[in-house]
């Protein structure tokens, strides 16, 4: 049997892996947050005197104690680490109680007297967009965090030529990432003056910026070390960084190590969510089944703070017409401030919402035209050499949409099973349905940020190797993927390579391990570093033996005719004996992208991935309960680096997509997140999910040095529309909002 490889599996299966809350430092104090009860208010007064008299309480830290900047943020610096005057959300933290134990700190919270002056909250994005509305962030000119658009062709004339025009509205829910490990941080001021931060986060460099800004110190004075992370899914950025910044603040003031570990309730109350979207689409079509035009208006509730809303909605803009060729497009996308809990990055990053709408929209269009939904997709979907709605010609990689679609059609026996669908037939005991969805996805960040990553390979005198890259482990197995790529490149067994404990002080910032970019970017950097390393070693061997090294295989160096020159260990010894360091720093920089914000035109992403997912299900006509029968996915992942981990990404992504479709919802009432634990927030459990099938389509990407692309997000962005379509074929009813509740 083939076995999975993970460098951290042994520690995790024996309970030895150290997550942040598992760590204790000597003389460590505990801090807990105090929240605002109102979604919008002015903080008038905060009396800590009674709390300070309670047993174990050491201090109550407020905004006045912040030596650096009170406000920080990834794009707009609008988030108060602690509130000084303006409250914009019930996730806002007014103060921190620090005590000898966490229980003592929690016990002191009710003794803090808080006086707020309530202001009328704005909870509906449409209301916030009204020019008459109060400006929530006075330093910002409007309640828009951003506005993106696409302008292509001429929608008005295209609509005149159209045989039919359809108009549909869709909305999606606010979703909690639900990493099983709540936020946790431990900070202490080291004797060399560096604030050392241990935590669980998406991107240690982002955390470092939050901490340095709060303390008012330089980046060199903060070192962030990522401990084992109990899941992220895009969700451990701003909030996790704020938790670290607050722990660092307490440690800075009190000169003692400070831990903050969130309860699930605090985590769900304060942490950002997936953006709820409202989407209005108008599509013009001709009788032959061609999409002539799309006009789309998309509004994203960004909540109280900006976070990465401009980037999330940018992806929605670029992908606003799904994976279809549309010659005439007018897309307007708004990111809006409200007083709801803020929204930010989550696995999928602005595409699950769009796919939910577009993959139903195309089926509605096909049905209106009397064309089957697969043929309609085949007519309109992007093919080799197609031009996207932003004017990018898809020619630098294999466009494999037809391949993923055909694979799923065949593997699921879609066409035959589609004939069996119930369509709400009253004579059926249970309603059966099958549905699918397809997508393309721009790889990595696009115009969301600078795309570069680096890797260090450092061979020790005994021939063993230390590896480090700018990608970070959030549970997905990125370290293992990097080790596998390095081992293959160097011709060494896996056990000779160790991944160094990541730290922000060792390697340059390679951007966040998000956007499914870990494998392509980090893997690319590992390949570059390995090439440099092989050149260093090869040149040394050439110089001292006169022999040309052409291959590194099975811990051996071979000449062009495959004859052994010397072993890897001997070659490394030779390097060290001659004062040559086998140390390589590799950088991977993908091709530049281009973007014009005015017209929404440009080469938005340097390459694309393609995927298709399908689901079969049954609906009980009496109760409306949906039972999933199976789920299947085919994605072009470029190259399978770590097959078991890759499958894990498929399955986990499909499961999360199923949760999005059927269960998950995080409504806000008067700005306060309603479900604050897993008793009220319904995650998919084992019995809710069916057997799943994962199919790899491997078309190595010429842009990717390792050939691999990404999977984390594509796997998560299709199951909701696939299920929605299956529900339509089962019940005969379209559901336009998430999560789907069947009305009987």
């Amino acid at each position, binding site marked *: 049997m083939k076995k999975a490889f993970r460098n951290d599996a042994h520690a995790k299966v024996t309970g030895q892996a150290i*997550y942040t809350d598992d760590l204790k430092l000597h003389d460590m104090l505990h801090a807990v947050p105090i929240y605002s009860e109102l979604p919008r208010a002015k903080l008038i007064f905060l009396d800590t005197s009674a709390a300070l008299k309670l047993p174990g309480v050491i201090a109550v830290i407020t905004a006045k104690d912040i030596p650096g900047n009170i406000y920080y943020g990834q794009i707009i610096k609008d988030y108060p680490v602690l509130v000084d005057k303006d409250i914009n959300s019930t996730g806002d933290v007014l103060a921190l109680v620090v005590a000898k134990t966490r229980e003592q700190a929690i016990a002191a919270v009710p003794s803090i007297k808080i006086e707020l002056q309530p202001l009328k909250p704005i909870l509906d994005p449409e209301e916030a967009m009204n020019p008459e509305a109060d400006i929530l962030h006075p330093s910002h000119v409007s309640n828009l965090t951003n506005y993106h658009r696409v302008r292509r062709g001429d929608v008005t004339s295209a609509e005149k030529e159209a045989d039919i025009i359809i108009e549909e509205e869709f909305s999606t829910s606010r979703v909690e990432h639900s990493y099983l490990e709540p936020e946790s941080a431990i900070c202490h001021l080291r004797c060399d003056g560096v604030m050392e931060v241990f935590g669980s986060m998406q991107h240690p460099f982002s955390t470092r910026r939050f901490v340095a800004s709060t303390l008012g110190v330089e980046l060199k004075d903060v070192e962030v070390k990522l401990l084992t992370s109990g899941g992220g899914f895009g969700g451990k950025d701003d909030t996790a960084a704020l938790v670290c910044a607050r722990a660092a603040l307490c440690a800075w003031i009190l000169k003692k190590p400070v831990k903050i570990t969130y309860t699930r309730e605090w985590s769900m109350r304060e942490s950002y969510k997936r953006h709820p979207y409202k989407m209005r689409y108008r599509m013009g079509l001709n009788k032959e089944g061609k999409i002539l035009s799309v006009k789309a208006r998309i509004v994203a509730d960004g909540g109280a703070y900006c976070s990465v809303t401009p980037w999330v909605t940018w992806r929605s803009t670029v992908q606003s017409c799904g994976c279809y060729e549309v010659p005439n497009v007018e897309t307007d996308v708004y990111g809006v401030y409200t007083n709801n809990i803020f929204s930010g990055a989550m696995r999928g990053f602005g595409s699950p919402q769009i796919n939910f709408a577009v993959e139903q929209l195309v089926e509605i269009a096909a049905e209106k035209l009397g064309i089957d939904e697969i043929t309609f997709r085949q007519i309109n979907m992007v093919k080799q050499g197609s031009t996207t709605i932003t004017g990018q010609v898809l020619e630098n990689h294999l466009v494999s949409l037809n391949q993923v679609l055909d694979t799923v059609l065949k593997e699921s026996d879609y066409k035959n099973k589609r004939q069996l669908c119930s369509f709400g037939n009253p004579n059926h005991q249970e309603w059966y349905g099958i549905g699918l969805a397809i997508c393309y996805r721009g790889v990595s960040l696009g115009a969301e940020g600078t795309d570069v990553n680096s890797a260090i390979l450092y061979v020790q005198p005994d021939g063993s190797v230390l590896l480090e890259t700018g990608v970070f482990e959030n549970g997905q197995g990125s370290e293992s993927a990097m080790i596998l790529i390095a081992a293959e490149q160097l011709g060494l067994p896996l056990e000779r390579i160790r991944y160094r404990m990541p730290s922000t002080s060792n390697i340059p910032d390679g951007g966040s391990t998000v956007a499914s970019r870990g494998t392509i970017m980090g893997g690319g950097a590992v390949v570059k570093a390995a090439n440099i390393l092989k050149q260093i070693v090869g040149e040394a061997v050439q110089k001292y033996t006169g022999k040309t090294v052409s291959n590194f295989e099975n811990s051996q160096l071979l000449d062009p005719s495959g004859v052994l020159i010397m072993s890897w260990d001997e070659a490394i010894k030779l390097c060290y004996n001659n004062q040559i360091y086998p140390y390589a720093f590799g950088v991977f920089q993908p091709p530049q992208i281009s973007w014009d914000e005015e017209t929404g035109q440009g080469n938005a992403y340097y390459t694309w991935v393609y995927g298709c997912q399908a689901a079969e299900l049954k609906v009980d006509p009496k109760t409306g309960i949906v039972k999933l029968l199976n789920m299947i996915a085919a994605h072009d992942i470029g190259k399978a680096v770590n097959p078991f981990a890759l499958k894990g990404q498929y399955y986990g992504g499909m499961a999360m997509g199923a949760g999005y479709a059927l269960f998950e919802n995080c409504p806000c009432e008067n700005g306060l997140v309603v479900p604050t634990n897993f008793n009220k927030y319904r995650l998919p459990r084992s019995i809710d999910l069916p057997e799943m099938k994962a199919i790899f389509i491997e078309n190595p990407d010429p842009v990717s040095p390792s050939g691999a692309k990404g999977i984390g997000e594509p796997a998560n962005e299709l199951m909701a529309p696939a299920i929605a379509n299956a529900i339509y074929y089962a019940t005969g009813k379209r559901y336009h909002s998430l999560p789907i509740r069947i009305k009987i």
Partner: protein
Amino acid sequence: MITVNGINYYDYDPERKLSLWLREDLSLTGTKIGCDIGVCGSCTILINGEPKLSCRLKVKDVENCNIITIEGVALPDGTLHPIQQAFIDAGAIQCGFCTPGMVLTAYALLKKNPHPTRQQVRQAIRGNLCRCTGYQQIIDAIMLAAERLDLKQP
């Protein structure tokens, strides 16, 4: 007296929450806290062989009981239990936060039912949330462990 992973304890605060006693006082941090209200299964331990949620119990509830935590599953020489090995081999581990609870739930299941169907495994782990894996490879792992344990029986 309380026995934890073969060691007897006599001195404890009976009112202390069991999960905290294990994590903070005995440094057995493999027991995780995901929800603290008894709905996620991260804090699962075995009490007299039965999977129980340590966040819902006090120390006094387990007096005279035999407790096994994830740290007590492998052999003293470090050899992994076949269930642990199967979790590694089948790719059932991602972030690992649910893993201790899953392994212990599986341990109890296979003691009772050495030849479960996939559906029975699904039922058995329904109290253990996992956000990463979609449960598929966890079920694969438990089926694999059952198969291997079976081969070991004479």
